[in-house]
């Protein structure tokens, strides 16, 4: 099932990549456009730091560390599943049905829909900022801190992927409300670019316990940078991101299966 899904994903994504090559000029422009548009957030941060030395008590390299983790993780999830917001449109125009008569898992087909390499722009951009932050932050690096960085990136990507899948499941019920998903995906990655100290307690609570985005970067970054944990969480939570990611993916998968079953019994 998983192997078949990955194979389907690979084949469909390949078709989309070749389709995008049909308009070469646009492809080149979109690659650069994606790189730039996703970089704008960081330009915004740089502009802010051109006026101040710290934001919420965090220095520029520290904020850049948060930014790099958030954007790289989100970029990976966005590359893999970012087009799921066209699902609602596919249901409205009926083309979703054509996916259901194929011998492939639907999630793989929906995930690979409109796969676009231009999304590498965001990952590249996030990774560059993360790289700069890693050499610029004032941290006594230990083995556990070094190892935690890649683990965090992968866990973060999985958490964001779960958000995308849950959003897709939500679209089955509310086909026109695809934008709600943006509040959690794009909104989430934007939120995580800033230190938790900037935000109100309730908001931080919400993104720690309800939609556990805090485990994408805030919590592990607190350990790496030696900052107080958000909400006074115990130190072991810095290493909990992979567990949170697994739980999120399991929940999102269940939501997707429920949604699909509901679609097939209601036709809408």
């Amino acid at each position, binding site marked *: 099932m998983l192997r078949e899904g990955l194979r389907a994903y690979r084949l469909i994504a390949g*078709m989309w990549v*070749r389709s*995008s090559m049909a308009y070469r000029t646009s492809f080149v422009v979109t690659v650069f456009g994606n790189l730039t548009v996703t970089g704008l957030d960081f330009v915004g941060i740089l502009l802010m730091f051109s006026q101040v030395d710290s934001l919420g008590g965090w220095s520029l390299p520290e904020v850049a560390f948060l930014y790099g983790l958030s954007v790289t993780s989100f970029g990976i999830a966005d590359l893999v599943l970012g087009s799921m917001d066209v699902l609602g449109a596919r249901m409205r125009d009926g083309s979703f049905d054509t996916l259901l008569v194929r011998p492939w898992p639907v999630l793989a087909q929906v995930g690979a829909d409109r796969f676009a390499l231009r999304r590498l722009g965001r990952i590249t951009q996030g990774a560059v900022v993360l790289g700069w932050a890693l050499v610029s932050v004032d941290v006594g690096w230990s083995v556990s801190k070094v190892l935690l960085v890649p683990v965090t990136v992968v866990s973060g990507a999985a958490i964001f992927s779960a958000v995308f899948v849950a959003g897709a499941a939500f679209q089955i019920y509310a086909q026109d409300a695809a934008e709600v998903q943006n509040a959690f995906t794009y909104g989430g990655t934007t939120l995580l670019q800033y230190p938790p100290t900037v935000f109100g307690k309730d908001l931080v609570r919400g993104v720690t316990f309800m939609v556990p985005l805090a485990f994408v970067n805030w919590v592990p970054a607190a350990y790496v940078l030696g900052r107080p944990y958000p909400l006074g969480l115990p130190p072991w939570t810095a290493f909990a991101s992979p567990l949170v990611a697994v739980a999120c993916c399991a929940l999102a998968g269940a939501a997707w299966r429920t949604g699909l079953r509901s679609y097939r019994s209601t036709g809408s």
Partner: protein
Amino acid sequence: MSGVDSGFIELDGVEKVFDVRRKTGFMKRAVRQVRAVDAISFRVERGEMVGYIGPNGAGKSTTIKMLTGILTPSAGRLRVAGIDPSRERKRLAHRIGVVFGQRTTLWWDLPLLDSYRLMHRMYRIPDARYRENLDRLVELLDLGALLDVPVRQLSLGQRMRGDIVAALLHDPEVLYLDEPTIGLDVVSKSKVREFLRELNAERGTTVLLTTHDLQDIEQLCKRVMVIDHGCLMYDGPLAGLHEAGESERTLVVDLERELPPIDAPAPARVVRVDGPRQWLAFPAGESAAPLVARIAAEYPLVDLSVREPDIEAVIATMYGEQAERAIS
């Protein structure tokens, strides 16, 4: 494709009920149950070619969606090639082909051949079989010159033929076609029909098609099923449908000048006059020739054309009949 088992497609009291939510006021909603398919039972043998017709919203596409595993029936038993479609959607997919009339499954920006290569891998079709099928289908549907053309540059008729090839590359035992000739030009229509006849005759592929075009049915299907309001209204030979519907064709006559209604031999009669143009209705089963000859001999004729009854009209008269019978 050898074993002759009966009831290749089997439906037993299949139902599909939808909840339709309707806004009745601010934040208030009423839920109404709509029976899109109401206790339908039928059987299609392997190798049959069946027309499935009915007005829009009658439940045709809901039935097709249940047969292809897209939708789960609310009640009843449904089997296609012994498989329960909604439970084993992916296994069934290997054995069926589906063409959604106005919805192409081809890749818009890529050459036609790329879409076929994807099917090749998607259905894990053995290489030799794929080659053989592709060559045969492409030749039959006359697409050889178009394989390297991006789909977006194909005409509607070419795209439809392209979609049919895509649906058949994996040798499905049954082919569902939803309005396969809608919007096509005359040449494409006849090509598609000729191909389907051949496919059915030579490969024994079971074909179930929905259509608005009575000629599709006339030229392709010995058997017709009519569905309306979710119920199966008629299941039998086409001739019987004509009888049941007592459908009529229309002869449109343009005269040189405005004249009183043409005195036509019964049962033909004038149903409408608009200046020099007159409309005559006559039974669909009869030839138009004697009527035309008579009018041409007696009236100053400029032009004429014959209009075929469409399915909606046939069905409408059919229900009229039934309603009358019910009353008497």
